[in-house]
């Protein structure tokens, strides 16, 4: 896993090296404007000054060397650098926003899993009925519904009715009033969470339902029935538990999807998460921030994949023991 991260970082730096020249130049220029000894009276910077600045920043080195220097700085000096624009230490920015995003996405994940499991099981026991067909259509509809539209509509709804706040960060302060903060937080994230939930439920539900139906059509289910095992037990204890493996495998990207979706969510609802940080960084050409963001998010997702591998082994003894 660390190897992957390492190579990923190399790739990121490499891509940056591929970037057309004027990006680096712009970056250097903006850096230079903030460095005191480059201030000149007319703010015009000639090419030799640019070259010198590049050299100072180490930007004229080949990309792998830049990468190693960066790694060196990060791991040995524990210095992720500073954001170009806000001058705040990158670590601080990324860490706080990351926690916000993780909280939001975890809550989302929990609700999504609970709802799609229970609905999925229930619906599969009603396979073929009109209710089931209607549910299949509704899940397809919401799966296909563009997330951004849903969020914008929800925001409009909030604004028109005034029932919910339009931005997603709570108004209470954490230090003063933890419970108040908690409630305010939940109140504020309710609508965006609803949007993420509706959008994600469609896909999850279809997956679970399809996997359950697949299980229920397996010979072992017939064998169980032939021995007089109750339907309810077959549904929960057998079919559902066997759905876990394909579900975990099929949605190891669930966390990734959630993070990707939350980016838009954070922008529309002004939630201070890592997605919005990334967006702002990109808009402002804050290279440091962009890079660190990418690395952090990828690291997080790699962890997620490892966790889901663990969950798979827990849930399925075939994975644990292998073939005899």
């Amino acid at each position, binding site marked *: 896993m660390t190897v992957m991260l390492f190579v990923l970082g190399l790739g990121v730096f490499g891509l940056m090296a591929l970037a057309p020249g004027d990006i680096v130049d712009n970056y250097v220029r903006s850096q230079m404007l903030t460095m005191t000894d480059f201030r000149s009276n007319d703010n015009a910077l000639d090419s030799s000054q640019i070259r010198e600045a590049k050299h100072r920043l180490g930007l004229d080195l080949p990309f792998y060397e830049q990468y190693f220097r960066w790694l060196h700085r990060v791991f040995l000096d524990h210095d992720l650098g500073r954001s170009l624009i806000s001058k705040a230490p990158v670590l601080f920015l990324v860490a706080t926003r990351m926690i916000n995003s993780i909280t939001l996405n975890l809550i989302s994940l929990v609700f999504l899993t609970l709802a799609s499991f229970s609905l999925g099981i229930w619906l599969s026991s009603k396979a*073929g009925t009109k209710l089931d067909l209607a549910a299949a259509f509704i899940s397809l509809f919401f799966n296909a519904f563009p997330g951004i539209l849903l969020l914008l509509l929800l925001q409009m709804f909030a604004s028109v009715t005034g029932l919910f706040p339009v931005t997603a960060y709570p108004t209470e302060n954490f230090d003063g009033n933890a419970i108040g903060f908690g409630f305010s937080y939940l109140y504020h994230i309710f609508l965006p969470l609803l949007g993420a939930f509706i959008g994600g439920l469609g896909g999850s539900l279809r997956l679970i339902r399809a996997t359950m139906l697949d299980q229920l059509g397996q010979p072992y289910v*017939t*064998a169980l029935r*032939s021995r*007089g095992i109750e339907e309810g037990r077959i549904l929960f204890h057998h079919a559902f538990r*066997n759905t876990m493996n394909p579900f975990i495998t099929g949605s190891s990207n669930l966390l990734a999807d959630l993070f990707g979706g939350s980016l838009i969510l954070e922008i529309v609802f002004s939630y201070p998460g890592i997605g919005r940080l990334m967006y702002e960084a990109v808009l402002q050409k804050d290279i440091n921030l962009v890079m660190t963001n990418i690395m952090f998010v990828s690291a997080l997702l790699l962890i997620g994949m490892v966790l889901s591998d663990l969950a798979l082994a827990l849930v399925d003894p075939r994975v644990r023991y292998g073939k*005899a």
Partner: protein
Amino acid sequence: MSNASSVVPALEVKDLRVTFSAGETAIQAVRGISFSVFRGEAVGIVGESGSGKSVTAWAAAGLLGNDATLEGTVLVDGVDLAGLDAEARRSLRGPKVAMIFQEPSRSFDPIMTLEKTFLETFRAHKPQTTKEEARRRAVSLLEEVHIADAEARLGSFPHQFSGGMLQRVMIALSLANDPEILLCDEPTTALDVTIQAQILGLLRELQLRRGLSLVFISHDLETVAEVSDRILVFYGGLIMEEGPKSSLLSDPRHPYTKALWDSRVKRGSHYSADALVLIGGQPPDPQIPEPGCPFAPRCSRVAGQCRTTLPGLTVVPGGRKRRCWFPLEGP
């Protein structure tokens, strides 16, 4: 031959018709089947795919789905299945009627150990079964089906067994609640020939020891013959011929039965000069039933009303029945 002693048959099927509906199309898989299985008797059902043999067994066990419409009567130990609700039918499966299936490696929940599977099977009908009691009974059942090292193997998962062993375990599970009737739906088709012989022997042994009423289904007449006292020949959703094994095979009255028996692969045929005898043509398509005898398109003796009128099942002395306009007359 048959040990039939009681008057009430263990299983009685009267004019069973099963229709499957898939959207707008309706397929009649079983078109009027009647037969009885007496206590302690082993009845074999032979037929090609689509002949309705499996569907009949599933109907007898009450395992057919919502897309199947049943007409006719199925009586298990004299009790009409139609009069029972779902829960009552469920309680029959295991203690009265048990079934084993074709693909043993896919007939087990892959994430449950044998021990848990046995426990669940016992508890489905006797909820108060303790774990120790379940272990004891499971071990004795596994020994009954000749699984070595039974106690140790209880903690294993299905994927840790071979196909043949799993079939034995499936048989053991099916006997867990002491059923009277055991339905076997092609249990040896997916196994090696040597294992097949072992399983067949096992089934015969169990049947005799426990006095089971056995219904053995296969597309292979030879296999059926090894296990059964009496044989039913299915074709196109109907019974074509019925009779005691020895007289049916030595003196078949229905051209299909004769063709089936003649087409079997005889030992040594690999080196012999004899060609394989095949039955030309295809099995009937249940979606487009023939107006007359279903076997007419492939029959060598077809003539006259064969194609237009369905012959009835005629009883013939010697416990035989046959459905043919131009039956083969025996010696």
